[in-house]
């Protein structure tokens, strides 16, 4: 049994530090206004609202390393890139510049280290190697935050297509439960404690 203790800010319901490392700040009216468009985009696989085709390919490739597709769906199947597009598209010019700058830097590193100027054209090992180098950057934290949010938010925002994200966590979007809730309270009831 591993035991660690740290003195640091608690992860309360707001997801703590991970959200703070991100440059993205969002407002509800913005999301609501965009969610219908994102829904359409999701089903039609149409062009993005704001991201260029290159950005779409590149951010998708990064997301796919953060939550890869293997024997279970990943960021790609969930349509996370459409969530990212929605968020950045609505009056997020400042944040968009940060993402574009971060991408440019990442692409230069790829060119310098592997002789390939597009992230999505590198193989997975090369991609992971580059991402490990920028793990503490605001750019990576922002993409990671958006990827995770795009994976597990309500599908109305464009990601979590067909609720694959919910399934990944073992969560049924059921809205009502009855006891027994888990193993230990079932056991407790059986033993008459």
């Amino acid at each position, binding site marked *: *049994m*591993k*035991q*660690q*203790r*740290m*003195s640091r*800010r*608690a*992860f*309360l*319901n*707001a*997801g*703590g530090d*991970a*959200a703070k490392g991100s440059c993205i*700040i*969002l*407002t*509800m009216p913005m*999301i609501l206004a965009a969610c219908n468009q994102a829904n359409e985009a999701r089903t039609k696989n149409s062009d993005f609202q704001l991201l260029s085709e290159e950005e779409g390919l590149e951010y998708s490739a990064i997301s796919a390393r*953060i*939550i*890869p597709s*293997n024997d279970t769906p*990943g960021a790609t199947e969930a349509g996370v890139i459409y969530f990212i597009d929605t968020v950045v598209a609505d009056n997020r010019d400042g944040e968009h510049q940060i993402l574009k700058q971060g991408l440019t830097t990442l692409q230069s590193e790829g060119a310098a280290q592997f002789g390939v100027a597009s992230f999505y054209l590198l193989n997975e090992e090369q991609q*992971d190697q580059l*991402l490990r180098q920028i*793990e503490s950057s605001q750019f990576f934290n922002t993409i*990671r*935050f958006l990827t*995770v*949010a795009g*994976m*597990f*938010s*309500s599908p*109305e*925002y464009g990601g979590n297509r067909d609720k694959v*994200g919910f399934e*990944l*966590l*073992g*969560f049924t*979007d059921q*809205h*009502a*439960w*009855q*006891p027994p*809730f*888990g*193993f*230990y*309270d*079932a*056991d*407790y009831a059986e033993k008459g*404690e």
Partner: protein
Amino acid sequence: MAEASNSVKYSTSQEVDFVIVGSGSAGGIIAKELSTAGYSVVVLEQGPHLKAADFTHDEWGVKYNFDLEWDWRKGHPQTRRRTENEEAVVGDSSLRYAHNVGGGSVHFSGNFWRLREIDFIEASVRGPIAGTNFVDWPITYAELEPYYTKVDWEIGLSGLQGPWDPPRSRDYPCAPMPVKSSGVLLERAAKKLGYTAYPAPVAILSEPHNDRPACIHCGLCNGYGCEVNAKSSTMVTMIPLALASGNCELRTGCTVSKINIDESGRANEVVYWEQDGTESAQRCKAVVLSANGAETPRLLLLSESARHPDGLANSSGMVGKNLMFNGYSQAIGLFDEPVHAYKSIPATRVVHDFWELDESLGFYGGGGIDSRHPFGGNLISTALSGGMFGGANWGAEYKESLQHLFTHSCSFDGHTTSLPLSTNNVTLDPTVKDVWGRPAIRVTYNEHPDDLATMKFFLDRSLELMDAAGATQMEGFVDENSPWTQHLLGTCRMGNDPETSVVDRDNRSHDIPNLFMCDGSSMVSSSRGQPTITIMALAFRAADLIIQSARRGEI
């Protein structure tokens, strides 16, 4: 806008009996009590009147866009610094509060812990604590008990009298909520270590009560509005009764800017903006401020005038001071079998053996430990914490760890005391303004060392319990100088001495005879981690005393 219901409409030039600022845990109760007693009441609420049909399980909207709260993205910035020697910096809101009818009671966790007899007289028993404003309450448990019982029955609580609980005049109206696996883990661990876990008392219905249905255990509870009206907010329990009285007008989307005082030194008018910016002033015979522990002192400070250069009702200089959060620690563990703590209400078991820490430890404090889902049953929040036990926080291994983290995890949370200090306070920022052009709330907060020592003690106990529960891995945190809190306490506190308190034992301002303050700002001590039941009991009591005083012609 005024509520389009069977309620009354007053004109602003008509002198109503009471204006109540805020419709939350305190304001909602006072509105119902005064209006059903026959008094004319106008309630001014900043937020909209959201109801069951408006509430969702939208984690993104609620947790990351703060849809149910006031914050800087809606044009309400706050600044924060540790001491007055630093410049306060704009950031995420430190003092977080709701933006809707019913206030925080709409989306709280509903953990309702009565204070005990010792809490009201602790300074006399322990002696003063150097560097703090630690004092007794001006009232005793016995005086508040009938109102705690009113909360139990009129608001609606589920629970069971515990072995350490203070005396009660009447049992809980509803049986305890069914235990969750997280509760069982705490209960068994507590037993092993010689402590007692018992059902957590909650303002959530386990069975139908007052024409409301029982909880459906939907799971996204803490921070979310209840979609079936089983969570006992003032929005669902008190406001409808107030409106049905025919004496209460609820005006939503109204932001109060100032309380005006007439020549005789009495409050006579409450000035406010409607959402379109129209300014109005409601005339009244008396004012009750229940705007929460951040906004009530701010409003008094904003109401300064030539006669009241330090703000209204502030002869003590204490308005805004003694700001207390509650301390927090968290031990998170993974288990072999599914815990599924994401279902049902946040907490079903609590350990109160550490209510008061022994003086021999060398620091002041106390509180309780309850058991919950580590991330409130939230999916994005859980996934963002992936890798917390030392693995990667992205990639294939990270992705595989997420399901276990969501379904097999449990936390033991410590909720603890904060001490009142003059240097912890709410003031008006000298430069930053809100969307209305008012000075922003500036928070100066640096917790007393005893608060941190208490959190660490509770973390140690929680980790021991987690080990005794059989966790296969564990991690622990304390919330040192918390970046934010929803427990906004102490800033216009009650007291008998006008030099060290803002309101008297009846929640009446020492300075202004027809101005009352009753909400989290009234708290003299921080509670042991869950203040809302005490705020609600104070509201029932304040309303009762206001009614008696009004009947004697004293208002």
